[in-house]
């Protein structure tokens, strides 16, 4: 079976609009969460989020492009450009029909939907922008990546709520392993920080009014973010042959379904995904130095995820470092796994474990080393990235150094 490696990474998120800035913020334990700024925010009870500030689309796109691009597609395109440059590519090598793009998103062009609804319902207009549909469709980001980089192989979008990015990256790995593609752009993108998008989230009453405190005894909910992460994935032998700088190998992937509840997580389904990723990677729990947790900061997720890690890791659970970077960049929903994979690269390549910030008090129900508040130096040979979605869909990636 072919091995799959990451040779490029790109991101736009509330911490920074590139990978080096994001890694620096993660290492410093800096928060990108602040006051939300968009129309009608005063009518929300949720006033904070990991909103991307100072993003200038006109710097990245001309007018004719911009008119077709919802922010979630803009973030994806900008992240992909960084990833391709990092991989050393002006264009994909070889046969373009052997390259594709798989992108996760939950809400797709949610802000386009919000704008169009505002026009027809609130402003009484009878007309919306002619490109409303191509902007809002969930596959827009994947399609624009394919168009920009002339990727003519397997390309599509994946919508598994908060696990979308991990499913997208895992499927891209399987495409290369199976010989259906030689290389892929994969990741996820989300932009739901608008009045309608957040109003829907408020209804569930799972948001924190003040801060995201994953695994903390005082946690009281999630804080939403936005952004994208995109990775260049290649066949290991091809990457090595061209002398590429390999950032990590994606050694394992597993997806499971709880088949239980539409919102409540299930420890057994999550534990099966963790065990499956380890098995697929040929790794034992004590070889994992870092777990980037799903760690949303809700009562239910963090308790369940901690139980799942303890169940899957056994005695090794006491030694593995576990952190949730959502406390810094917010929960980027369909894009979150891709943004969080950067924390795994930070651990593997720079020996820095990003902290779980906003930690006030240990929760005895968690019982894990959650790297509270301050980053830690450690040599990490292999890492996991967890993503557990509403709907009980779990996706775990296992990464290792090459």
């Amino acid at each position, binding site marked *: 079976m072919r091995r799959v490696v990451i040779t490029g990474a790109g991101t736009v998120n509330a911490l920074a609009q590139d990978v080096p800035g994001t890694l620096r913020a993660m290492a410093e334990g800096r928060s990108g969460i602040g006051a939300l700024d968009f129309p009608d925010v005063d009518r929300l009870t949720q006033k904070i989020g990991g909103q991307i500030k100072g993003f200038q689309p006109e710097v990245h796109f001309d007018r004719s492009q911009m008119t077709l691009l919802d922010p979630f597609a803009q973030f994806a395109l900008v992240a992909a450009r960084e990833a391709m440059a990092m991989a050393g590519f002006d264009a994909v090598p070889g046969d373009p029909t052997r390259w594709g793009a798989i992108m996760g998103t939950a809400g797709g062009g949610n802000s386009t939907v919000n704008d169009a609804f505002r026009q027809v319902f609130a402003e009484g207009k009878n007309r919306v922008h002619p490109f409303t549909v191509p902007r809002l469709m969930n596959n827009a980001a994947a399609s624009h990546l394919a168009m920009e980089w002339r990727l003519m192989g397997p390309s599509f979008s994946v919508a598994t709520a908060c696990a979308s990015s991990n499913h997208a990256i895992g499927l891209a790995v399987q495409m290369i392993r199976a010989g259906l593609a030689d290389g892929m752009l994969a990741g996820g993108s989300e932009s739901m920080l608008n009045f309608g998008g957040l109003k829907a989230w408020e209804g*569930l009453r*799972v948001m924190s*009014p003040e801060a995201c405190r994953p695994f903390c005894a005082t946690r*009281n909910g999630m804080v939403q973010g936005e952004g994208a992460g995109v990775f260049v994935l290649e066949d290991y032998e091809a990457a090595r042959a061209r002398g590429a700088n390999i950032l990590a190998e994606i050694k394992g992937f597993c997806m499971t379904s709880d088949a239980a509840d539409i*919102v409540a997580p299930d420890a057994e389904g999550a534990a099966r995904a963790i065990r499956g990723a380890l098995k697929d990677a040929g790794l034992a729990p004590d070889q994992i130095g870092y777990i980037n947790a799903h760690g949303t900061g*809700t009562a*239910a997720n963090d308790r369940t995820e901690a139980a799942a890690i303890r169940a899957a890791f056994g005695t090794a659970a006491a030694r593995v470092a576990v952190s949730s970077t959502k406390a810094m960049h917010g929960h980027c929903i369909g894009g979150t796994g891709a943004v969080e994979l950067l924390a795994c690269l930070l651990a593997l390549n720079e020996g820095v474990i990003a902290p779980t910030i906003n930690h006030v008090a240990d929760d005895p129900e968690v019982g894990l080393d959650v790297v509270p508040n301050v980053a830690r130096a450690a040599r990490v040979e292999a890492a996991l990235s967890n993503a557990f979605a509403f709907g009980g869909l779990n996706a775990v990636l296992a990464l290792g150094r090459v």
Partner: protein
Amino acid sequence: MRADVQDQIISILAREAVMDPADVHPEMSLDELGLDSLSLVEVIFAIEETFDIAVPFNANEPSQSEFDISSVGAIVRAVERLLGGLAPAPAAA
């Protein structure tokens, strides 16, 4: 306790629990009604819509909220306080 408020809340809870309103009594807990956390969020929403009030409630810490949900009667009293414009009593009260 105002009978109309109590009747309306019992009607909301009975609908959510798929029970006859005659079987829902003030001393009953939400557990006894078989209501899970998702149903509770719907109940809170229905109460807000029915009485045109904003209920302080976070599903992450339902027992920590200012809004007492320890029993059907407690919910009725909490709604009456919100309707009366009085500050909600602490959950421990």
